[in-house]
């Protein structure tokens, strides 16, 4: 980002200079991880959980106690760490990384227990239908309850009374469209609920969310039409309507460059003159015997990669142009179902990218 003076200028003009992020463009990982709450969101299917898991590893490698929170769904997060499902109480997924699944009914039940010592009501509220009912009566209550649990975690409290100090809380948030509603819920709720302590408590949530030293949102995008458009809209709404600080945008599944321009020329030149004949001697030297089909595969896959990459680069450009945030590229991993080694790789890339910016 240092190299891109134009963008720094644009960000400063956009009134973003007072954020700690922008005062020091040479962000280091510690700064990158400064806010305790990191919210990861993006359009469905862009790899939110993957990015959340990789972020968790980056933080854990720095010796932080990390809690990854899924919100009201059975997601793929625990699977990435090779584990089973998550519960409402934190369980350790890998060294230094804990996971929770925040269900609104559990959060409501905990809230009633902790706030009002209402044990019997707490029990009734664990039924899904009641939660549907209550959270419908007061819109946004569901989201506020979930955010409330995140606040509990941020404050190092837990409903069971056991102290749970996490240094970093990573929220695998709902998909982008719903994410805005989710983060807007505390301010929305105060319109519906005019009395009661919940009114005051929503203020605490708003404080947490709008303090750039406490909370930051990372959007995840793919270099494709719809995800880019949606990311830019979400990003705009976050800064202009919700005043919630954002960190770099992660562009996921980016095909890495295979050949340099010179190599590309070289390839096309020899491809025009019988590729197999030109490459066979080199292959033979290391004990490989290529046939015509192999030669087609070599050129075919190189061209496929290059054409996909060209398409992606166009969308990446649009993404960079449209956002004031740095865009960090995460590589396409040639895998049709990610597992821990892939997450480790992405965490390596993240560290490298953050140090480079």
């Amino acid at each position, binding site marked *: 980002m240092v190299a891109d003076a134009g963008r720094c200028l644009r960000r400063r003009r956009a009134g973003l200079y007072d954020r700690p992020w922008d005062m020091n463009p040479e962000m280091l990982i510690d700064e990158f991880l400064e806010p305790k709450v990191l919210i990861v969101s993006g359009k469905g299917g862009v790899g939110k959980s993957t990015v959340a898991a990789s972020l968790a590893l980056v933080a854990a490698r720095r010796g932080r106690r990390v809690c990854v929170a899924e919100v009201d769904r059975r997601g793929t997060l625990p699977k990435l760490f090779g584990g089973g499902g998550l519960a409402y109480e934190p369980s350790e997924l890998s060294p230094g990384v804990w996971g929770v699944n925040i269900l609104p009914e559990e959060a409501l039940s905990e809230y009633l227990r902790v706030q009002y010592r209402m044990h019997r*009501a707490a029990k009734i509220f664990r039924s899904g239908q009641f939660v549907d009912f209550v959270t*419908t009566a007061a819109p946004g209550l569901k989201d506020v309850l979930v955010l409330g649990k995140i606040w509990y975690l941020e404050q190092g409290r837990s409903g069971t009374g056991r102290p749970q100090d996490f240094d970093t809380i990573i929220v695998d948030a709902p998909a982008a469209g719903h994410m805005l509603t989710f983060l807007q819920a505390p301010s929305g709720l105060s319109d519906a609920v005019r*009395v009661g302590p919940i009114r005051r408590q929503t203020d605490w949530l708003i404080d947490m969310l709008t303090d750039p030293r406490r909370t930051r949102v990372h959007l995840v995008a793919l270099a494709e*039409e719809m*995800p880019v458009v949606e990311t830019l809209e979400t990003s705009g709404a976050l800064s202009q309507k919700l005043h919630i600080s954002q960190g770099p945008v992660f562009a996921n599944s980016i095909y890495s460059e295979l050949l340099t321009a010179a190599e590309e020329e070289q390839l096309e030149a020899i491809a025009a003159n019988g590729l197999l004949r030109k490459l066979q001697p080199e292959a033979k030297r*290391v004990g*490989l015997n290529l046939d015509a089909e192999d030669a087609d595969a070599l050129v*075919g896959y190189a061209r496929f990669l290059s054409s996909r990459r060209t398409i992606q680069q166009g969308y990446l450009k649009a993404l960079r142009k449209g956002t004031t945030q740095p865009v960090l590229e995460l590589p396409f991993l040639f895998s049709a179902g990610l597992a821990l080694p892939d997450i480790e790789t992405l965490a390596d890339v993240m560290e490298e990218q953050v140090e480079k910016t």
Partner: protein
Amino acid sequence: MNPIGEMVAAKEIVVCAGSGGVGKTTTAAAIALRAALQGKRAAVLTIDPARRLATSLGLKELSNEPSKVSKRKLTTAGLEPGGELYALMLDTKTTFDEVVLRYAPTREQAERIISNRFYRNISGTLSGTQEYMAMEKLYELHADGGFDLVVIDTPPTRNALDFLDAPKRLTDFFESRLLRWFLLPYMKAGGGIMRVANVAATTFLHAMKRVVGGDVLQDTAEFFRNLEGMYDGFKQRAGDVSALLQSRSTSFVIVTSPAEESVAEATFFATRLNQAGLPFGALVVNRVHPRIGDGIGVKPRQLSKLEAGGDRARLLAKLLDNEDAFMRLVHLEEKNLNALARKIPRHRWVRVPYLEQEAVDIKGLAAIADQLFDTA
């Protein structure tokens, strides 16, 4: 004719389902476009706020009512429409209002409901509402719209189950005796909490009042009071919708990519369709990486030797490494898809390869339709 072609020839409703980001909306639009070209009066109903779909169809924006794609737009794209193409985007709240207006015994009662604060909240946020209204709209388009074919993409639900069960879940919610029973003191006294014998109800109301305040309960009770007498209408319609979905006029398309997660979702959905007795039509597999050759199988040792060589050797190393990565990916994708083939026989599949461009205009959509209808 491939499975998609057969479906469009024989069916009146096509429902596209699948996990997020696999191309549901585009698939739905391409199917409707092809049907229009074949001479049908076709509509695509989208749930996603897909502005891109509007733009790619040359429409300014999509609304809750069908907008017609102009014939000129289609002919400019080099197409010859024998029929008509319409597109619309579900507006959950407006559709819900229409439902209330339809079932309320009097106009006054409908208006009391529509202006009720509790109703205003549920019409947008209650889980299952969007799914229910999508089905409602689909039913309405099919019954009264005069369309030969309605194609719909399903809401981005957490799982297929939510979507299929939505109409029933919502009617159950309205009908829940339990809830009304808990609200009884409010419904009767129209105000403060009466001393009721039941401890659970008192505890519930007490807790509710502390959390959300008394006036919220007031609104809620009033809503349920106004809803009395409308349950039968709701229930009947939910039954009609579900009968329509199970009828011979309807067919489901499952859209997937070869990635593990979306294949798992597709498998799950196929099972659910089967259990629910819903008619499955075709599986669309998008974004499959091409298979070229049988795999060279370069060894790391060979790669490092080549990397230490001259220009051409280094170029070969890169090409081999790249081929190896793609081959590995192709194998993984095939493994995922083979698992899916045990659930959905391959003759119901349509594979759409990676296309050079996304569908940003009618031409692009038509190209996707070609792939969908003309691949064997």
